[in-house]
């Protein structure tokens, strides 16, 4: 059989690997970045126990150190200090409430009344899940230690005032 002769000189089998290495490292980088980002984070939430017979479930709050934040429609919130109806609620965007929390905490801490500064979060039917997560996140960032979630006892007066502002 006649063999094909492609010239007397043999071509060197050496191949430039540089582009291949580049590609490999690109893929490696891609995999490292995508795997670390895709692990979801979680937020620890504790809701008050619904058992009314348990006396430990009743927490006494100081009116002057309690801030109630109502979550409404269109990323709006209404907040007031103390008891409902005692002071007129302030209406704000959710993004602005951070400042109000800081100010209220300052005033509450300066008042000299015993007890921790408490934030009561009341998500209403107008709010969405993101609003709720945002406000809980905000409280975590501001290190508000005592925070309560209450979605059962939204007072009629609170509903009325929110409706009048068109955020419920």
């Amino acid at each position, binding site marked *: 059989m006649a063999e094909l002769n492609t010239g007397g000189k043999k071509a060197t089998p050496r191949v*430039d*690997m*540089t582009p*291949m*290495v580049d590609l*490999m*490292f690109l*893929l*490696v980088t891609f*995999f*490292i970045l*995508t*795997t670390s*980002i*895709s*692990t*979801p*984070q*979680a*937020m*620890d*939430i*504790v*809701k*008050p*126990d*619904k*058992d009314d017979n348990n006396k430990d479930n009743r927490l006494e709050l100081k009116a002057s150190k309690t801030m109630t934040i109502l*979550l409404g429609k269109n990323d709006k919130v209404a907040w007031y200090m103390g008891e409902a109806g005692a002071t007129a609620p302030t209406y704000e965007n959710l993004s602005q409430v951070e400042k109000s929390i800081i100010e209220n905490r300052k005033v509450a801490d300066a008042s000299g009344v015993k007890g921790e500064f408490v934030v009561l979060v009341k*998500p*209403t*039917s*107008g*709010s*969405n*899940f*993101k*609003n*709720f*997560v*945002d406000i*809980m*996140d905000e409280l*975590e*960032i501001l290190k508000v230690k005592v925070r309560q979630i209450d*979605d059962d006892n939204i007072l009629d007066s609170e509903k009325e005032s929110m409706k009048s502002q068109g955020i419920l």
Partner: protein
Amino acid sequence: MPRIKVKRTSTVTDMTAMCDVAALLLTFFILTATAKQPEPLAVSTPSSTYEFKVPVENNAILTIGQGKVFFEVAGQKVKARTLELIGQQYNISFTPEEVKKFSLVASFGVPVSGLKSFLALDGGERMKPGVQTGIPTDSTDNQLNSWVLQARTATAEVNSQPMRVSIKGDSKEEYPVVKKIIDVLQKQKVNKFLLVTNAEARRK
């Protein structure tokens, strides 16, 4: 002046070894990476600055989106045991094959009555829109309650650890829908939840 003779070396280095290393790393990452399970109910979770990883074991994830709720409990053994317990509760006997199939299903949202026909479908058909309608949560037929309860029992039996409940809600989901699910859990005295969120850089 005498000149110092600099020996010129070739700048071409052998890249083969480097290529081998890169290929090895690549293989390692591909193999260790957990493939992302296709989700029947796609939700975009809100972001938060919390730095707490969702537990891989002893965890049940409730996915809430479009007014529907989907359920998943972590661990194949736990899944299998949960299905057996559900079968006992609703007087449906599942074949070992069906139990095995179920232990591989990730998140699902079908009523218990439709579970057998759902398991008979293959993976691609399960993901079609309209197949999974969500788990019923009405007060007359609260199957979500049963699922969570049986998953807790199964986790306690298999891993002898308490089960955590994670809620993976869509950002746009209205709060009353979320509240309804949380109320179901609170009836079982589950007062602690994990809300699944995306990582967000902490503002300073």
